[in-house]
């Protein structure tokens, strides 16, 4: 690794100041499970590393059935996954978070870091998108919010301007009759980057037969996590049926524009986009109806 300076500020303001003074050259360190390998490989060479794990706001994890979920950007995955109330309120989000790496990665990796690393294949991002998450950012010019689907702008790139810090993520409280799910396809059963990831969240009517609203998002099929608005819009007002869900899945496949790389071929990814979308929609329906599929979380 190159030589760098390390600092651990205790407040958001101090962190923002450090980031701003570096002119964008400093790098934020939360879990380190992406940054440290990148530095070892020489892909990132920041002169200054700003450890944000000592900042109280970034460590907050608060869930309230009315207020929703406030997720500090430096909260490690295992704290989220281990929180029963959050897991019950947002199973489709928590299952995405729970499969970021193996158990050791879960001990360090953060959702904030997963988001800011902005890999097109990140597991948490499609799930955050479909759950309507909003990013709360503080910078030299004050605070602002960005819907999570707009946060990533390209592989490894976000809307954060020099000096800006992602402080926390807000997820609205779940509606009644809401269900969400995330599945990814990987060649092994764990430890792999998603070949394709699919997240879905929908709200059914009281009877559980009609879809009131739906959101679908895909990972690893575009330069950034893909919010497939048209597929979700198609589902609004439709009755739950195999044909309807399949059509939404087909629309998701249409929207996907994957590449061929060493983790998957474009044809495979297009195909999986449809397969996984259908599967998460089915699961989201079951969860919205209060039934639960008897299958491993997160895996296709």
């Amino acid at each position, binding site marked *: *690794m*190159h*030589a*760098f*300076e*390390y600092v*651990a500020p205790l407040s958001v303001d101090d962190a923002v100041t450090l980031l701003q003074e570096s002119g964008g050259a400093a790098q934020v*360190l939360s879990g*380190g*499970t992406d940054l*440290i*390998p990148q*530095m*070892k490989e020489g892909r990132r060479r920041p002169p200054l*590393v700003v*450890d944000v*794990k000592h900042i109280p706001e970034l460590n907050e994890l608060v869930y309230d059935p009315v207020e929703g979920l406030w997720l500090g950007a430096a909260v*490690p995955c*295992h704290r989220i996954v281990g929180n029963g109330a959050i897991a019950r309120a947002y199973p489709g989000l928590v299952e995405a978070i729970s499969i970021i*790496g*193996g*158990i*050791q*990665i879960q*001990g*360090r990796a953060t959702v904030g870091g997963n988001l800011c690393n902005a890999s097109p294949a990140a597991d948490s991002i499609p799930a955050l998108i479909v759950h309507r998450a909003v990013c709360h950012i503080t910078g030299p010019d004050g605070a602002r919010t960005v819907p999570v689907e707009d946060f990533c702008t390209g592989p490894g790139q976000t809307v954060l301007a020099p000096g800006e810090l992602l402080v926390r993520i807000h997820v609205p409280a779940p509606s009644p009759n809401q269900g969400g799910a995330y599945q990814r396809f990987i060649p092994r*059963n*764990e*430890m792999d980057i998603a070949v394709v990831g699919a997240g879905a969240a929908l709200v059914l009517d009281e009877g559980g037969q009609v879809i009131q609203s739906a959101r679908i998002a895909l990972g690893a099929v575009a330069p950034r996590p893909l919010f497939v608005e048209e597929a979700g819009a198609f589902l609004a007002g439709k009755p739950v049926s195999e044909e309807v869900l399949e059509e939404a899945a087909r629309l998701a496949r249409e929207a996907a524009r994957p590449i061929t790389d060493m983790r998957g071929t474009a044809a495979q990814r297009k195909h999986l986009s449809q397969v996984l979308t259908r599967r998460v929609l089915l699961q989201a329906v079951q969860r919205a109806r209060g039934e639960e599929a008897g299958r491993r979380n997160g895996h296709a």
Partner: protein
Amino acid sequence: MPSKVMVSTHLNGQEVTFLCEPRQTLLEVLREELGLTGSKEGCGNGNCGACNVLLDGVLVNSCLVLAVETEGRTVTTIEGLTPPDQLLPIQQKFLEHAALQCGVCTPGFIVSAQALLEQNPQPTEGEVRRWLAGNLCRCTGYDKIVRAVLDTAQTLAGNSAQDSDQEVGG
């Protein structure tokens, strides 16, 4: 020359202070500065678990922790996990089940399995395998490792896996 930082951490039950560069990982400092070579480097990027330690009681890959991040924290390595006067039940079961061949991944597995059993004292085979997915072994195919962990759980729960019958088959 890059400047060094002084770090104080609670390591294996003792207050330890060391000098390191920010770019040195916890794994590197443990092995090269503190003489604790029980944690191994197998991959350097969090994919094999051979470097596993407990950080504030949480299982982590020490190759992905900067040593400076352990300031004020608690670190337990394989050396600290091993009791002074006897082996842990998991260590004993690894030996009895021949759950190691070359042994280089074994410290990581012991730390990882111990963390599992503390969190989930009666895991199913599937839960054991999922937990251990981040610990790579190339020698054993995991069969005897999983048996050793399940046997440890059973033993700790008070049931003995040994019965007095004669050996069967084999």
